[in-house]
């Protein structure tokens, strides 16, 4: 059974690239472009992993992460934060809120894929 990935980003071009990468790896891909849509999508699609941007309309990535972690039903959902904000405080904040990994944009596509596979336990 294919792993499901939810891509959450408001930059259309980034979404296009991520979608392409994830599909190429054989994942099922869903997309959300703002925080609220992301949460809705998590509920509906029950993704295995969320690629989560932080600067999002309506609800930012931190809030989305927090909400996911607060819900007992969603404990299995893995979260990889992707953000252009590279400051240490942001990284620390993301990890503290329960993100499984934190990647700074622009990222290496190889690294991202390796990270995602590792988290999902795919060797």
């Amino acid at each position, binding site marked *: 059974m294919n792993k499901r990935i939810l891509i959450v980003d*408001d*930059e259309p*071009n*980034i979404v*296009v*690239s*991520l979608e*392409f*990468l994830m599909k*190429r790896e054989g994942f099922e891909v869903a997309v959300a*472009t703002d925080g609220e849509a992301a949460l809705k999508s998590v509920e509906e699609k029950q993704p295995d992993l969320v690629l989560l941007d932080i*600067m999002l*309309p*309506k609800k930012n990535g931190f809030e989305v992460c927090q909400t996911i972690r607060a819900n007992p039903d969603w404990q299995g959902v893995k979260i990889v934060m992707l953000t*252009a*904000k*590279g*400051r240490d405080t942001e990284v620390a904040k993301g990890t503290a809120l329960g993100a499984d990994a934190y990647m*700074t*944009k*622009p*990222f*290496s*596509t*190889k690294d991202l894929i390796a990270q995602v596979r590792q988290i999902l336990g795919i060797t």
Partner: protein
Amino acid sequence: MLQGWVIASVSFTYLGVLFAIAYFGDKRSDAGRSIIANPTIFALSLAVYCTTWTFYGSVGRAASTGIGFLPIYLGPTLMAGLWWFVMLKIIRISKANRITSIADFISSRYGKSQLLGGLVTVIAVIGIIPYISLQLKAVSNSFTILLHYPEIVMPAKAGAVPLLHDSALYIAMILAAFTILFGTRHLDATERHEGMVAAIAFESVVKLLAFLAVGIYVTFGIYNGFGDIFGRAELVPKLKALMTMTDSGASYGSWWSLTFLSMLSIMFLPRQFQITVVENVNERHLARAIWLFPLYLILINIFVLPITVGGLMHFPDGSVDADTFVLTLPMAERQEVLTLFVFIGGLSAATGMVIVETIALSTMVCNDLVMPVLLRWKRLHLQEEQDLSGLLLTIRRLAIAAILLLGYIYFRAAGEAYALVGIGLISFAAVAQFAPAIFGGIYWKEGTRAGAIAGLTAGFLVWIYTLLLPSFAKSGWLSLDFISEGLFGVALLKPQQLFGLTGLDEITHSLFWSMLANIGCYVTVSLRKRPDLVEASQATLFVDVFRHTEGSARSRFWRGSAKVQDLLPLIGRFLGPDRARGAFLAYARQRGVDSAEQLEADADLVHYAETLLAGAIGGASARVMVASVVKEEPPGIDEVMNILDEASQVRAYSRQLEQKSRELEAATAELRAANAQLKELDRMKDDFMSTVTHELRTPLTSIRSFSEILLEDPKINLADRKKFLAIIVKETERLTRLINQVLDMAKIESGNAEWHTADIDLHEIIEESLAATSTLFADKRIQLVREFAENVPMVKADHDRLIQVMLNLLSNAVKFCEADRGRVIVRLSVEGSHAVRVDVEDNGAGIAEEDQHTIFEKFRQVGDTLTAKPQGTGLGLPISRRIVEHFGGRLWVTSSLGKGATFSFTLPMNMGGGKRQEERREI
């Protein structure tokens, strides 16, 4: 058997010991190792207050009034409690002004008045003479009684003994000689008589021990303790009455008045002033005296009642004068050694008082009475004298002899009319007259010389009339008629019932009227005229002594010219040439000058010389002497104006200071604000950097991702390949645009941007911009409406920059308009009389009120949270606003959510390209 020669030799031995102590004290003082720099010695020397009047007289008074002897000691005890306020101030004033005596004190306070100094001296001498005669009487009586040992024979009436057989005469002569030896070896009266003080302290110990010895002997030797002695007295009705207070109003009245009198006496008796103020080494010694001196008074009074009662029981027939009980009780018991010790105790009480009192009085007589007269009388003659210090010493020695002689004469003439205590109280009442002038002088700046003279004179005359003359009358010098009938037979003028005031004893009566006259005249006369300049300056020095113990304030009130060559010989004449030169040299060194001749004879030097001289001849005379060599210009109207001017300068200066401090506060506040702004800017810059980084990373992310995808997978299908490459190109353009705008913004903000200012027709700018954006309008099929006013004036601005602004506004308008239904209106109009205005109105989504401010901030694109992210860098509006503001205009938005937005800017017409600071507040 006590032979005359035994008594005489013991007495002289005692005096020899005293002299040795004094000599030792002086030697140690010269060597700089003072033996009196000790608070206990100071307190003991204050006990010079206890004279033979205490030693013999307390028992005498107790025999007639019971505990009525106590107020004399109660007063000083109470006063000692106030010393820390009152006496400390007097001491401080006296040290600062080199005061030599109480007369000097009063005359200095009231403008260095010679008249006042003389008046005080006369009052003091006349007032104290009876007191001195009292000592002579006591010593002479005790000597006579002792001569008859073991028989107890009361001495004959003073006048009954032939002059040359009168022991009092010889005692007076011996005391005079002794005092001269003691007190006038040095000249400078402010140079303290340290040896004398040491001797006086020793005498205080001797008289206390002697009195305690008698007391203990009588109480525990003759009787069996206090209980026994008072128990037996209880049985005798007359004695029982002595031990309780009589409850008549008069007796309470005299308690009050005696307590009050002795409170003043402990301060103002010349000998007390001498010891407490002039001889004081260190004002902090006062602290111990405040409790030690009252303790001494208690000790010396403990046995007064037992001795009195014992004496009255021992000599019930009244044949023995109670004044002599202290001596006659041990005599009656044949206690030779004790008797002799008591005599020595009495002698010590007398000599202590006489020495200090006559030294104090002779200083006053010399400085405030004789010298002023001599200097005035034979001024020219004295001016020729090269060294007057010898003359001064002679005057003082003669004064000492004269005072004792007067004391003796009073003793011969009036001494018998009164018991010891009675005589003492007459002196107390005289000295009390100084109180208003002194207390007023140190606490009340309005007190004037005229007021002090009036008060002292009035009080003194009343004292003479109500106390001194009656004492003469009772001694037979005057007819008793004027006491019983009143002066000229007028009953209201009866000296001891003045204006019909009865029911008081003579002391209380006299005190009441004299104080009333004294205080009344002092206050009313003082209030009638304002103090003149010298009086006011002295008043300030005295009243505010704690504020400026430095005397420098005084010199401000003096203007004149003097020469060192004049001053030095002048001081030399009174102090001796060597000491004068030494003092000047010391002053010169202090000023950093090598010799006295190099000194500048300024006001301070003249003041120094005057103070130096004041120590020798008193303040008033010193002033006259210095004035004789100094061309003193009395402070005239110019001087007063100068002083006022200085005062107003001081005020102006303090106003400036206030102004400066206000400015400083304002500057501090500005700095604080600037600092806060800097911090804010720093934070904003930090945010800016963070935001710029974010904005740069976003396009980079896409570029990198697609590049890697294309690189890794060459077999990617063509459609995807084209799509990805298009994204890369677009994102690269976005990146370039962003970098350009950030740099543009940075240039504008740092002031490094280039501006090509010229006369610009906004009409053309708008048309050019509309042409450039026509494809945008066409793509979204948006309606464009032009509303241009006619004859719009030119503005001064940069053509390209204005195009930049217009393009930004137009593209924004298009961006937020819905395709097909959008409509953009561009208006050009004249605003008021000074500005041209451009509006770009759209019918798009509009901007919420709370966002209308933030859209002008960098990277704050509104719409982020609403819909899909609009294209743009978030720097367009902030840059546009800065451009408009640079040319002195304004850029703003009016809008409400859902009803479109209108962006407007104005530019000043025909104004130069200079930016207007006040328009740039919103950054």
